């Protein structure tokens, strides 16, 4: 630590940021892998099946009771899946537009990870200057919206690059879906920031620590944000770009091996970042009602991170559960819901919030 203190503040900042980035990236990747497992397990249970329960690396033989239990829970399945994706043949159909075909998976996966940069996933760790957020931007939420909407380009590009009808339909659907939900999503958040009076996500968390969770102040905004998040991340009931049953696989029909895995990663990473956003905006981030002061010790700092992750996991389970609860919306129903219900509702919500702020509680 002593050596570290001698370094320039800028160098310190760079080193700290690099470490945070690496850790956040690693944790997110693990989360993605295990979100896939959770999805498979939960879907299996909901459909009266057992789900992945066979993958067992040889070491499990030497762990007495725990080993077989972990195997039955499928804990090792993500590793096998990852390995499989790496070793599979990377097939490029002859008629695709090569450059875009290669570009699309990268564009789909990067924005999903970039959003994590502004999310405060803990208070502080060690000394009070080590904020647990990679980039403490004052326009955090604008950044998020800017980045998240880039994700759709990956999908549209994939649809275009594949040069075949199903991916193309998937791409078109995706862009239409995106414009109808992005607006409602943005508007729902406007009300939140009117209440808080700051665009910095850390400030939002601080406000909630003082005044209670935002979901209690702005339930309508939360509902709209949640549903829009489902549409943004292409999850059922709004998985129209993918819709296996009608478009084969939608935008990623022509993709295989690691390129397909990137879309897959992107989808789950987007799901996690959307959940992280919701935790930050509506569920008090890393705070609990009685644990809202920034951490003074290392242990409390870790506890805050754990609280954040626990909230995140709950929301992920909601995401996964809903997938098996509702059938897919029809295309026109989706548009109807986005344009004719959510946008007016969100506007009304903004207006109501403004009136309440102006006349009742300034």
């Amino acid at each position, binding site marked *: 630590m002593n050596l570290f203190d001698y370094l320039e503040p800028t160098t310190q900042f760079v080193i700290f940021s690099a470490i945070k980035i690496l850790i956040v990236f690693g944790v997110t990747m693990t989360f993605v892998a295990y979100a896939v497992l959770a999805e498979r397990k939960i879907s299996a249970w*909901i459909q*009266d*099946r*057992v789900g992945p*329960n066979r993958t067992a690396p040889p070491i499990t033989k030497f762990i007495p009771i725990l080993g077989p239990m972990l195997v039955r829970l499928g804990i090792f399945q993500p590793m096998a899946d990852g390995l499989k994706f790496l070793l599979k043949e990377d097939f490029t159909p002859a008629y695709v537009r090569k450059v875009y075909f290669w570009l699309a998976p990268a564009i789909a996966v990067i924005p999903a990870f970039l959003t994590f940069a502004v999310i405060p996933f803990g208070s502080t760790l060690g000394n009070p200057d080590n904020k647990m957020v990679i980039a403490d931007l004052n326009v955090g939420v604008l950044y998020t919206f800017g980045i998240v909407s880039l994700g759709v380009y990956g999908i549209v590009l994939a649809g275009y690059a594949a040069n075949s009808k199903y991916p193309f339909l998937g791409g078109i659907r995706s862009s239409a879906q995106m414009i109808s939900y992005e607006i409602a999503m943005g508007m729902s958040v406007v009300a939140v920031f009117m209440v808080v009076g700051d665009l910095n996500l850390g400030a939002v968390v601080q406000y909630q620590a003082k005044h209670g969770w935002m979901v209690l102040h702005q339930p309508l905004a939360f509902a709209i944000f949640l549903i829009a998040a489902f549409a943004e991340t292409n999850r059922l009931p709004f998985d129209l770009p993918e819709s296996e049953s009608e478009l084969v696989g939608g935008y990623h029909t022509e993709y295989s091996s690691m390129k397909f895995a990137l879309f897959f990663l992107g989808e789950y990473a987007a799901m996690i970042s959307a959940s992280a956003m919701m935790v930050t905006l509506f569920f008090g981030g890393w705070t609990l009602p009685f644990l809202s002061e920034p951490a003074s010790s290392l242990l409390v700092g870790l506890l805050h991170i754990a609280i954040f992750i626990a909230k995140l996991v709950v929301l992920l389970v909601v995401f996964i*559960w809903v997938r*098996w*609860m*509702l059938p897919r919306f029809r295309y026109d129903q989706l548009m109807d819901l986005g344009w004719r219900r959510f946008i007016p509702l969100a506007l009304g919500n903004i207006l109501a919030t403004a009136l309440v702020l102006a006349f009742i509680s300034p």
Partner: protein
Amino acid sequence: MSTKIVDRKPLSFFENSYLPTLMSGLKVTWKHFKKSALQGRPLTMEYPEQKWVVPQGYRGAPYLVKDQEGSTKCVSCQLCEFVCPPKAIRITPPGPNGAPADRRNAEKAPAEFEINMLRCIFCGLCQEVCPEEAIFLQKDYSLTGESREEMVYGKAKLLQMGGTHGGIQKWKHKLEEAEAQEVFPVRTN
């Protein structure tokens, strides 16, 4: 006039809010989740450990059977070989100087009896045609092996898998009758 036009009632405001659908979806999924995750009763049958119990009369793999006294029932008549549609059976008869059958009064027994389980279609014609009730389709439905050779079951294996089959012992009765002829006066009952 077989077309019946069902009039659809317009949805009420409450129904239009998707909330009832959401609730019933949650109810159904929770019911199944509870059953398979919390109570540990999924519908899945975990195959190699748990096996399906086949019903009576199931046509599984054909095996040779022995009679109550432990002797081979097959007399190497080769009818099953002849009838077998995919030619899965190959019988090597004992030949003029081969070993005799392992029971009295039966003329012969196959020197070798092979069923290629990769060819067999479990049709049951061999069982149907056998005059000796020597071959039966039993309840094995999943035969596995690591090579083609291994899937050709020989006589020893077929007999071992087949087990014993009770039933009339044709040649034993013939023998008894023949022996009864030897004594005098002839038994009449």
